[in-house]
């Protein structure tokens, strides 16, 4: 069913039930995302896509559009709130871009640029975390995990459908874990898929890194905004 919504004051005709984040992109309005993967069930974990819907703050990747919906994306207070959410991620983990293999193809970094982050307004925590090298083809740099749960939900054992990645404990104690036995059964293309699916540099493919020179890396060739806006199915 065709419906009308208001997007930053502009009237937009769209299809009922489509995800707000996609509708916005189709109409040229970029909403930053970190956990959301277009076409996959929403996770709603990172909240980076928070916008104001009918006066309330909601994650745009979790909201199907409905008739008459009033959406504010680029309103200053909401924009600053999204920026604060990204800054929180940078101060909670140890995101040392200069020494990270994922730099230049990291979604968190790319979103940081999009929201205009120069520094985090929150104190940097420098929490010590241990790395996990146990599996054959992958290692976990836990400093960088933002608990988006993309790997937990979307990477599963080909035979049994069991989860390979999981999150253990809760709150500040939470850690990303890998089932070594299942991980060692992952075919090479699934290993690559897991490493690329990770929006930060937490899941890293062993023996790979710094392959593309500065200036020719993923988000330097085409920004995350351009990539989000071009996946449009009008």
């Amino acid at each position: 069913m065709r419906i009308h919504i208001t997007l930053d004051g502009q009237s937009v005709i769209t299809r009922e039930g489509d995800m707000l984040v996609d509708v916005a992109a189709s109409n040229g309005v970029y909403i930053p995302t970190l956990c959301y993967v277009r076409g996959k069930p929403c996770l709603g974990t990172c909240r980076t896509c928070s916008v104001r819907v009918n006066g309330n703050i909601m994650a745009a990747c979790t909201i199907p559009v409905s008739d008459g919906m009033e959406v504010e994306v680029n309103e200053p207070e909401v924009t600053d709130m999204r920026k604060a959410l990204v800054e929180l991620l940078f101060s909670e983990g140890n995101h040392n871009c200069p020494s990270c293999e994922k730099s230049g193809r990291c979604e968190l970094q790319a979103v940081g640029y999009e929201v205009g982050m120069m520094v985090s307004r929150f104190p940097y925590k420098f929490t010590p975390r241990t790395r996990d090298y146990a599996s054959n083809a992958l290692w976990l740099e836990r400093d960088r995990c933002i608990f988006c749960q993309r790997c937990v939900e979307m990477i599963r054992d080909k035979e049994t459908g069991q989860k390979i990645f999981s999150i253990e404990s809760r709150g500040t104690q939470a850690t990303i874990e890998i089932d070594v036995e299942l991980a060692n059964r992952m075919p090479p293309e699934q290993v690559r898929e897991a490493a690329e699916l990770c929006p930060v540099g937490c899941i890293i493919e062993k023996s790979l890194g710094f392959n593309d020179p500065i200036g020719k890396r993923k988000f330097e060739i085409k920004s995350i905004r351009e990539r989000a806006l071009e996946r449009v199915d009008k």
Partner: protein
Amino acid sequence: MSDSTVTEIFSHELPATPWDPAKKEIERAKIQVAMIGLCGCWGCNLSLLDIDEAILGLLEKVTITRASFTDLKRIPHRCAIGFIEGGVANEENIEVLEHYRENCDILISVGACAVWGGTPAMRNMIPLEECLSEAYIDSPTAVPGAKKVIPFHQDIPKITTRVYPCHEVVKMDYFIPGCPPDGAAILKVLDDLVNGREVDLPKAINRYD
């Protein structure tokens, strides 16, 4: 730190060639800029030199006082702008940063180390005792048979327990991330300030690595 039995002469107290008065007047009329490196690798200062010939046009409007380029050891008079590279990792860094805050109207964190601690802050995840022990006691590159000593002397600044971003020590006005930031990014911020525009670092030249 100071010991009354030792006579200390600081380099800025040593006799220096006086300025040509006419030249001094011209320079004093310009916008005064100071720079310093704290706990960093000096790459951000080098990045400033990467603005190449653009510095010539800029030098008609600004003059550089205390900086590695001028080798002045103290800020000679009040400055409009101070660029700080590097984070705070020892007592001397604190003293220098406070000196800059007291003598500069606008203070800018330049580079990852100043902005959040950067590479030196990797030691924040490890207890200081362990860091010093790895460096001086159990160092894999220690000379066999040499006496194992953690350097400690009144002339060596005391190391802080952890590495701090500049804005956790004094108020910082602007931030230029990057390791190092592009020369163009530093130039853009300086140019905005010199020409009285609101500082705006476009995302095209903002980077964290």
